């Protein structure tokens, strides 16, 4: 399976019926297509909608109905649209059950850096700081390393997105849970060893006696 698809499929298992979920741009967006159609998960886009479907039915595109990247979407029956103040009230106010975001670095305790590389990439934080600060549960979906560089590290060298620690990290190699004591290895991707994950990780992993295969339980 393709790495990104593997990550997105595992994240999809974390989403439960009746919950409100916000997916970041890029890899996290893939998750929407991997939950069952009848899962009754409400997807929010921070430009002002709950109940979006990523790909609009052909012929039903509307210039005034788009996702946060400006791409056309569909509104499912039961959808609601609102202004940006309410959209971020939902995010900051504890109404958002889960956000799934990409990451540049995550430290051993779960602090995330995902919005800028000083001197190289300064796109702006968009909604990321509000999402990490306000969502009930934050899941980071990212590749384990970037061109051989560690992304899971002792301490982030890039500017933080929030002081709040994320709850789960899903990569193509493993599922990891940051804790105050350090990064716990929760699951291994099929065919990946503990030693391989440790070699690709820039902080000492806490490895339980039994580490299940990703998504197998």
């Amino acid at each position: 399976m393709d790495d990104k698809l593997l990550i997105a499929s595992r994240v999809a298992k974390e989403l439960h019926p009746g919950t409100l979920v916000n997916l970041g741009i890029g890899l996290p967006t893939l998750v929407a297509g991997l939950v069952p159609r009848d899962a009754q998960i409400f997807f929010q886009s921070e430009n002002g909608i709950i109940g979006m479907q990523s790909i609009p039915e052909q012929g039903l595109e509307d210039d005034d109905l788009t996702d946060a990247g400006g791409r056309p979407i569909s509104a499912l029956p039961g959808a609601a649209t609102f202004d940006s103040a309410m959209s971020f009230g939902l995010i900051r106010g504890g109404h958002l059950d889960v956000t799934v975001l990409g990451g540049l670095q995550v430290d051993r305790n779960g602090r995330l850096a995902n919005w800028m590389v000083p001197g190289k990439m300064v796109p702006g934080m968009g909604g990321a700081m509000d999402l990490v600060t306000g969502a009930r549960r934050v899941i980071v979906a990212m590749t384990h390393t970037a061109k051989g560089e560690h992304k899971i590290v002792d301490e982030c060298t890039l500017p933080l997105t929030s002081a709040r620690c994320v709850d789960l990290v899903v990569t193509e190699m493993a599922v990891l849970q940051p804790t105050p004591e350090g990064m716990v290895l929760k699951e291994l991707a099929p065919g990946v060893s503990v030693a391989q994950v440790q070699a690709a990780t820039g902080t000492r992993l806490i490895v339980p006696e039994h580490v299940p295969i990703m998504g197998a339980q």
Partner: protein
Amino acid sequence: MSKTIKAADAVARIPDGAVLMIGGFMGVGTPHRLIDELVRQKKTRLTVIANDTARPGVGIGKLISAGMVARVIASHIGTNPETQAQMIAGKIEVELVPQGTLIERVRAGGYGLGAVVTPTGVGTVVAEGKQTIELSGKLYLLEMPLRADFALVNARQADHIGNLAYALTARNFNPLIAMAADVVLAEPQEIVPVGVIPPDAVMTPSVVVTHIIAKE
């Protein structure tokens, strides 16, 4: 007296160096006719307060490409390489603000509040130079309200006295900026008789709208 005027006459009121709030999210819900008129009248040294600067050639991106903007307050400029290039070249001053904080600063400016108190940004570079305060054991940043000389609003409908209704995700910043500027220019997709927009559906009451931009 009718509030409806031509885009050219409305934009003629905007001086060089004005502070503009502009609705829209990646160009969706942006008043495109007013933007085109700003470019045609070659305004300069503008400050733009908006969610983003869209893409080159789209919405606010047209103002950036034309070199008309001296300062941007936005949450995201990553989709417009020209904004980034002009920022690096020192031609545009950019203040990046978390999106939820940005819209609340606009709301505070329009709703008569003295500040926004938000947990977003605590412990990050966003907190630098700002007051962090502790309330009930939790840390918050004190963020200042924003106001503008002009708000450029896109609406689905306006009636003849200026009540506004918005469409789907084109609503975004529009109803908030309509409260936070000295002069509010509303560019509707259609102008309808008074009464066509039911009171419950009016999202911006007519009293805050200065001018409605006529269809031409």
